[in-house]
């Protein structure tokens, strides 16, 4: 029986040098210079090299501070992104935060946030202005609207009808009249057993929809859709009107979703109506039926879009890899299947190629609850100083409450 071929010591050396050469070449090909930012996979260890060769390299992690109105859609999207090839090496950490709360956290240097996605662009100018004063650069590398949703009134159907019978329409002005009715529902609809008229919006200092309410109160008062002036905000007549409205308001929750959930759980004993995002109202239309009865949606004559912008941050703690990962997640969110899914959660897709009026869409299914595709006149976002003074006046009014 012949013996199997054996390598001479010289042959072994040649083979060793060949394998070593291959590994070195691979090392040169895949490993980035030592000056690459930490957290972007700059390891030069043998383990790191083998991980990269085998496709097990450390993932890039990005933190996305987002408003909870997008919670269910984004949680689903993060899972799907993780399964996609684009997202295989990217770990997205969702950080639920009130829109204004997130802005304050970034300004204070919260290093876990690489993307800020508030409910609207309303506070963007104030944020950019404050950042630029500190850092002399813009904090935003890229921005896109993810999905649109306007503001709506949501009422219990049984309260909506008598309200409409008394006031003719649902506007912030008629809501203000109902709040001023000292005998409450006794005066509105001869229903003393319903108690006072109870209306809520979120805390303007913590939640975008609360701030949006104040802005629309100002537009309503001046009956205009653009160019709100600082002098108008400071006008005593407007201040008195806003003060009276706010004294009648109940609750002031710190998040729109929480407030809507409370309305459905506790029924008309806590709120007869709320001013919330359309998508949040849609999300609760079905569950409300099983608790207290049907809800009814009504659109204000003057409205604003909440476009759920996605800001890729250009902050010192955000590495190029993290910005790249943030962009990849944004592209995924804007893709057609993900945009279609946003429709199921009550949003109007930010991608204009995705139609709204399709079978199964809430805008078709829930028309009987008052849902409409067309909304009222859209108001322009006021300047940063107008918003800042609106918030400051509101706070002063609260002090005297």
């Amino acid at each position, binding site marked *: 029986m012949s013996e199997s071929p054996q390598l001479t010591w010289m042959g072994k050396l040649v083979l060793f040098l060949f394998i070593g050469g291959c590994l070195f070449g691979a090392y040169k090909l895949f490993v980035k210079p030592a000056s690459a930012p930490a957290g972007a996979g700059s390891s030069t260890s043998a383990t790191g090299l083998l991980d990269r060769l085998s496709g097990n390299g450390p993932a890039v992690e990005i933190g996305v501070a987002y408003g909870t109105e997008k919670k269910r859609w984004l949680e689903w999207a993060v899972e799907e992104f993780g399964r996609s090839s684009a997202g295989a090496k990217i770990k997205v950490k969702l950080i639920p935060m009130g829109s204004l709360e997130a802005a304050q956290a970034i300004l204070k240097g919260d290093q876990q946030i690489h993307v800020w996605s508030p409910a609207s662009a309303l506070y963007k100018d104030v944020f950019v202005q404050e950042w630029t004063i500190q850092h002399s650069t813009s904090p935003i590398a890229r921005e896109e609207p993810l999905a649109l949703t306007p503001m709506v009134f949501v009422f219990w159907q049984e309260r909506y009808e008598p309200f409409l019978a008394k006031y003719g329409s649902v506007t912030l002005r008629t809501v203000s009249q109902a709040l001023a009715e000292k005998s409450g529902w006794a005066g509105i609809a001869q229903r*003393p*057993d*319903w*108690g*006072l008229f*109870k209306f809520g919006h979120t805390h303007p200092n913590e939640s975008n929809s609360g701030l949006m309410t104040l802005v629309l109160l100002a537009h309503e008062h001046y009956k205009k859709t653009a160019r709100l002036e600082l002098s108008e905000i400071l006008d005593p007549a407007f201040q008195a009107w806003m003060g009276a409205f706010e004294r009648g308001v*109940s609750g002031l929750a710190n998040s729109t979703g929480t407030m809507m*959930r409370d309305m*459905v*759980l*506790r*029924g*008309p*004993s*806590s709120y007869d109506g709320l001013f919330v995002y359309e998508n949040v109202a849609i999300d*609760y239309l*079905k*569950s*409300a*039926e*099983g*608790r*207290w*009865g049907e809800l009814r949606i009504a659109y204000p004559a003057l409205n604003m879009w909440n476009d759920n912008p996605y800001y890729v941050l250009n902050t010192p703690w955000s590495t190029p890899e993290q910005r790249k990962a943030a962009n990849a997640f944004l592209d995924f969110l804007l893709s057609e299947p993900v945009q279609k899914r946003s429709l199921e959660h009550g949003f109007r897709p930010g991608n204009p190629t995705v139609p709204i009026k399709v079978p199964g869409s809430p805008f078709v299914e829930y028309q009987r609850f008052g849902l409409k595709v067309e909304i009222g006149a859209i108001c322009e976002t006021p300047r940063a100083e107008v918003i800042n003074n609106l918030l400051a006046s509101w706070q002063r009014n609260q002090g005297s*409450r």
Partner: protein
Amino acid sequence: MTFTYGSEKEEWLKDVTAVWNREGHKTAAGRTILVNAIPMGSGECIDELIAGTRRAHLTSPASAAFIQLANAKWRAKTGRDLVGATENLVLSPVVIAMWKPMAEAIGWGKKPIGWQEILALAREPQGWTTRGFPQWGSFKFGHTHPEASNSGLIALFAEAYAAAGKTRDLTLADLRRPATAQFVSGIENAVVHYGSSTGFFGRKMFERGPGFLSAAVLYESVVIESYSPKYAPPFPVVAIYPKEGTFWSDHPVGIVEAEWVTPEHREAAKAYIQYLLAPAQQAKAVPYGFRPALPEMTLSAPIDAAHGVDPKEPKTTLQVPSTEVIDAALDMWRQNKRHANISLLLDISGSMNSEGGARIGGAKAGARQLVEALGDADRFSLLAFNQTARWLHDGVLLKEARPTVASTIDSLYAEGGTALYDSIDAAYTRMSARGAKDDRIRAIVVLTDGEDTNSTLKLPGLLDRIRFDGERQTIRVFTIAYGSEAKKDVLQQIAEATQARSFEGKPENIRAVFRDISAFF
């Protein structure tokens, strides 16, 4: 992980926590999360944390008012909140539970009913006679102690709001108005006694029937419990959702923000909260009468008219007042509550020297605790007994006599036999002799460690003499079986005969027992 919670949800949490512990959930570091869930009064959940007597990691009183109070106290001490963000575990409105025929007699089912109707009944010296039902006697009302229990605190807020004609923004000025005090004292005068547990009120109301209580402030879930086959009440119980508005017992759960809570505890707490809020565990809360905290879960039986409740109620929610208003409301209540006339019967027989003197020492410490906890306007008598009974104080006003009473208690020593029955009879006879003019809560508290050795009266004779009859014989005898040799069954019979409660104590926990008893007054 230690989790303290308001005892109203004990049955549900026992059920689901046992499953959690069996399933062996683990933290990321691989350690098993074992939850030690301890039921107690909502006030106690907070008091223990502030005093540092129990280092809970997670807490859930019955309502957000207690979280607000706890955070205010902790901020004053440390500058920080004690409990962080909370989530509601389950919901149940606070209601006035009343026997259905009684509720119908005041218009329930035909018109909205509220605190005004309760006040009108409470002020009526002729009680139910004025409503055409003399057989029901006086109007007997109950709610728990506002400093010990959530439903008692809520009842006080609701009375104050009703008096002020408001549903929100209750102010100090509202509380200072004489009309508010008159409204509150009018209702409080019909209270048979207070207590530390809403569940106890409910259970005793359903067991003892309308002769014990006409109505009580309970949770909707407790009203539903009255339909359980374990009770056989003469009438069904219905929930009155006060027309002036009410509160939700929303069972907020939150992580304790203290140095003993590690990041791993926090991780464990979050996982356990998520488990409690999952549909499977929420569904298990429904048979116990709770409304689930998941909006997508529809309300169904037993939250229906067949169980005395209305899923479309309440109509109006009242706002939890600010911390300073809460404090002022409690002060106002202390002045306008139904005051008490208490006789403490302390066993000083020779056996109380056992356990190296710890037994008599503990009894004296507990007695001092009771004297401390009673109000300034309460009257107090002290009878020390062995083979003979000696009155050491007789109906003194505690505002003036508290230090003297405490000194007397300190001066006691143990010797001789035990004339338990004769002593109770003597105290009962003396209190009865003061007659119906005494509009205070009248009660005797008896502490004894053994059996009767020296009385001429026998147990059946004593029970005949003190038995509660709803109208003339209304003095309650609370008993404490102290130490292992105490005759628990005898003391239980005495307490039950007077529609009171029997406790068990030992030197280590006797102060807590007296604290529990003081919550009845």
